[in-house]
């Protein structure tokens, strides 16, 4: 059965089109990822599905309910973790869960039992009476996960759940989501700009950029859909004219792109191409300053479908962060 069915959904803000005719369907029990940089339209899309924003055009059914005409039914059947931390900082962990359980009309006896189970599932039982403001970012996110499940929803929406968390907390959140999903047979839709998160968690990934859906498939199939199993990145000293053409002639090379003296080669056989490249450089008197070989990543998939790297897209979306990083570097 289809848990989420989106058909040609559009969202405009004045003249600006944030989401432009996106369609996809998510079967029950799947973890579905929306991967793209900030400003790609992921959050706008998820906000339409959780009834926070009305679509400009198109339709969306969540659990069989229309997000506009049956918004209340949609809300009753979903759990949502927004991008911002939305727990009440002055309330304790347990109080946050109690308030939300009451908002969803969970009867008292069931509420007490569910909250105890959820606190155990997110490993916060000993922190139940602690005020949320005294918890770390990772723990607060776990409170929100518990809060989103307090009414036993069938679909769980998470908008960038690990943004701002340290690497250890991120892994903890992933493990928690995986465990909860398997225990409760949830359908999960998650938005992220972290490739590793999408790769690790999601059964299928939709690549979103500039409000459009560029590709949709499982991580494995997405990687297999682009030319080359390996990606070589090489930096050279001054290269002779026609260097790019000569690189294309190397064994197993499918595509070459680059400018100045930095080149990116996609190859079906990374080691063989590497050896041939080094020999050619030596014969031509060209110095190889750096060379890296890696398997195809989702970033490569992103580049293939959007024409730019995910990290470049992130920098475009957050120029101040990039400038700060440059100053620190």
């Amino acid at each position: 059965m289809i848990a989420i069915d989106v058909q040609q959904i559009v969202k405009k803000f004045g003249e600006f089109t944030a989401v432009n005719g996106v369609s996809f369907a998510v079967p029950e029990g799947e973890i579905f990822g929306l991967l793209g940089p900030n400003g790609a339209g992921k959050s706008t899309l998820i906000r339409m599905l959780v009834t926070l924003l009305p679509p400009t055009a198109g339709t969306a059914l969540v659990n069989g309910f229309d997000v506009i005409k049956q918004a209340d039914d949609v809300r009753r059947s979903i759990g949502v973790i927004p991008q911002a931390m939305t727990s009440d900082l002055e309330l304790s962990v347990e109080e946050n869960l109690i308030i939300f359980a009451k908002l969803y009309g969970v009867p008292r006896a069931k509420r007490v039992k569910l909250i105890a189970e959820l606190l155990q599932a997110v490993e916060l039982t000993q922190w139940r009476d602690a005020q949320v403001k005294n918890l770390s970012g990772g723990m607060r996110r776990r409170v929100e996960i518990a809060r989103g499940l307090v009414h036993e929803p069938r679909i769980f929406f998470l908008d960038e759940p690990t943004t701002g968390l340290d690497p250890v907390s991120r892994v903890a959140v992933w493990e928690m989501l995986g465990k909860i999903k398997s225990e409760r047979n949830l359908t999960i839709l998650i938005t992220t700009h972290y490739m590793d998160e999408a790769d690790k968690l999601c059964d299928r990934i939709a690549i979103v950029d500039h409000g459009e859906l560029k590709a949709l498939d499982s991580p494995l199939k997405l990687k297999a859909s682009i030319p080359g199993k390996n990606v070589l990145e090489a930096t050279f000293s001054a290269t002779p004219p026609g260097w790019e053409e000569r690189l294309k002639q190397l064994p197993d090379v499918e595509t070459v792109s680059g400018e100045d003296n930095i080149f990116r080669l996609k190859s079906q056989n990374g080691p063989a191409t590497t050896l041939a490249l080094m020999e050619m450089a030596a014969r031509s008197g060209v110095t190889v300053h750096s060379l890296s070989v890696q398997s195809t990543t989702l970033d490569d998939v992103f580049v293939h479908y959007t024409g730019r790297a995910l990290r470049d897209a992130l920098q475009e979306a957050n120029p101040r962060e990039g400038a700060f990083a440059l100053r620190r570097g």
Partner: protein
Amino acid sequence: MGRTWAIIEREMRRFRRSPVLIAIAMVMPLVQLVVLGYAFGGNVKHLKLAIVDQDRSVPAVKVRELAAAIASGARTIDTLEYTDPGAALTDLRNGKVNGVLTIPPEFSRRVLERADPKVALIEDNTDNFVSSALAATLSGMLASYNQPPKASRIPGQATLDIVEVYPYVAYIQYLLPGSVVMSIFMMVMIGGGIIFIDDKNRGLHEGYLVTPITKFELIAGFNISGTVKAVIAGAFLMTIGSLIAGIPDPFNVMRMFRLFVVIVVTAFALISLMFLLMVRVSDPLLPRAVFGVLNTLLYFPSGAVYPQQGFPGWMQAIAVVDPFTYAVHAFKNLLLKNTGFEAISYDLGFLLLFSVVAMTAATALFKRTL
């Protein structure tokens, strides 16, 4: 209604854990009441009066003796003898004295001839309170000077008998109604407006909007909890303020009930106003910027510190639509005159109507989506 109660519960739990908010909303109006009440409520004393006696005869001496009697009795003035009028005027301009009483050389002759004798008061009128007090004191002094040695048993001139209906009202008591309304307003603005917008800016409201809570339940929850917090602040200030200000019989049961009704109605009117102002606001700086201006615009035209009859036309126009005006009027009637509901029915009616209009408009403007 369960969801409305959940919002109220959430707000009250947060309120309980906000000692700074509680202190600001309750203690600050109390401090203002005491400081303003005693700063404005006292009689002016020890004003420096330079006396330049250019006459030196018996009638002039009598004037000087009367001035000295006031200085040692009521102490409104402290007298300083000057021989040089020029020096006295210089000291007046330099602020060393507040006024110069000049007895001209021909004063005694004119008194004896009954030919319009005059003494002159030259005063520093940059401070109206001081100059008014000085003029009033010396006018009273001269009235005593003009009393005949033997008054007739039956006075031939019209006199004024003043009858005060109520016991003496100290200025701090006069200020109390405005301070109660101020404390309600501060709680509404800080505990309601500023925190509401801060939560919205943090994205907290998204967490509630994705639940099945209806628009009405959300608005009712926010406003009922805001009213409860404001009532607590108002009741606190009413009780403690009454004791500090010396309101007679402060724990009269019927009066306490009437006061409580007015506190509730006032709180709801002000929370409705706050909600209407903030319903479409997202910038957390805006309520902070507006709060101070609104405070001034609502408090002073209400008649809380000075009678409205003394205001210019534009300020009286503000007072007509200002909910503070009706709340202050109601509290004044109950606290200072111990009237019943009939004396404040118009005030309650206005406040209720104001609440309905403001809340209806705010509900219409409130967006259930982002």
